[in-house]
């Protein structure tokens, strides 16, 4: 039996369609200039990739933070493309229909990242992983899993923006503890960290823990910046302005990555 159309439902439907249209419009505007492809990483899981620039020498694979892919990242990717990189923004949340909340990161297996690196390695020389905040864990886990296969060419490094690699929120007054992957990674790593953050004061501890596993770390401090500055809803005018320098900071991070003999990873 067909139900009578409910005017309330029709209104809701119209509202949803309007919202969807506006969302598509906003996304289209944010992604203007991007190429696109999708990469199958698991049965029925295809990761939409936005591609900026074209370079067979150096590719940046941008993995999402706990907020998923955010619009300002497309702008930064465009600027990185102008600096000579090819950038792939991988919507790993969208691929699995996950909401943009921190717990979604736990639902993304590191094998997804391995599949993305595999696809990138077919055409590109140096591959750099880039992520921010809690996405840093996914980047490190993906790199480690990829490098477990000795026949794979190691990733050239990881650029971590204000990484949150805590195992859990530490109790007040207790020293931070980091996820096991921190001490297991063996990578050249560049950390970009704003100084308006409690984590700025723990950078030495994080660096020491990362280097325990054989990683080598360089840090670039961004004065006057808070964590997540480029996509904070409450971003200050100076933080919004600093988005335009983020690509240059990432480029500096890549250029200053410490050297490490990854071919002999134990």
């Amino acid at each position, binding site marked *: 039996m067909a139900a009578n159309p409910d005017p309330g439902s029709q209104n809701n439907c119209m509202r949803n369609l309007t919202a969807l249209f506006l969302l598509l419009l906003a996304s289209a505007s944010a992604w203007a200039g991007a190429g696109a492809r999708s990469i199958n990483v698991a049965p029925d899981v295809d990761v939409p990739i936005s591609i900026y620039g074209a370079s067979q020498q150096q590719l940046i694979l941008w993995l999402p933070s706990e907020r998923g892919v955010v619009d300002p990242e497309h702008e930064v990717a465009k600027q990185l493309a102008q600096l000579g990189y090819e950038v792939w923004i991988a919507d790993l949340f969208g691929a699995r229909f996950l909401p943009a909340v921190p717990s979604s990161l736990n639902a993304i297996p590191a094998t997804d990242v391995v599949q993305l690196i595999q696809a990138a390695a077919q055409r590109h020389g140096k591959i750099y992983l880039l992520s921010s905040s809690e996405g840093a864990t996914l980047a490190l886990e993906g790199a480690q899993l990829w490098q477990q296969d000795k026949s794979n060419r190691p990733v050239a490094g990881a650029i971590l923006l204000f990484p949150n690699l805590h195992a859990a*929120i530490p109790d007040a007054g207790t020293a931070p503890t980091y996820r096991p992957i921190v001490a297991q990674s063996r990578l050249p790593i560049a950390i970009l960290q704003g100084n308006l953050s409690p984590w700025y004061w723990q950078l030495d501890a994080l660096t020491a823990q990362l280097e325990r596993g054989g990683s080598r770390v360089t840090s670039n401090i961004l004065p006057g910046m808070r964590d997540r500055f480029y996509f904070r809803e409450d971003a200050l005018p100076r933080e919004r302005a600093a988005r335009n320098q983020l690509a240059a900071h990432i480029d500096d991070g890549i250029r200053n990555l410490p050297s490490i003999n990854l071919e002999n990873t134990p």
Partner: protein
Amino acid sequence: MKNLAMLIFGLMFALNCAHARELKPIAPRAPFSQLQLQDLSGKNHSLADYKGKVVLVNFWATWCPPCRAEMPSIQRLKAHMAGKPFAILAVDMAETEADVRDFLREMKASKIDFTILMDKDGKAIRAWNVSVFPTSFILDAEGLLRYSLLGSTEWDEYDAVHKIEGLLPSTP
């Protein structure tokens, strides 16, 4: 029925939002870390000077929205505890005095006048292992850490007031 369910959900959401974070007991009671800093007028403060008083040590910064949000309630707590052996030490994270004075001007309506200490080189933040802003500690009159709190709260609500008053030394 659907409206009733939405009403119940809305009430639950509102109650959840209104519920302030609770102070977490620290066990076993731990002696305090050192804290020797200057206030905005350049006066030296040491935690040892506050023995005999219950002390709220609050780590904050002007750029931290939840820190700013709880400042008026800290001031109201100070007013509530007036005349009792209780002190507030709000430790600013490595900002300039100008930043803090600008903030106090912005908050003029709240008449903030509790002690603000300047941790210019982050020494106290490191020593107290502050990972989240704001982070607060309550010390008893013997100088032992008794409660902590990650994040902001309404300091003049029942949980905080009740627990702080419970630590006040009894009058001889």
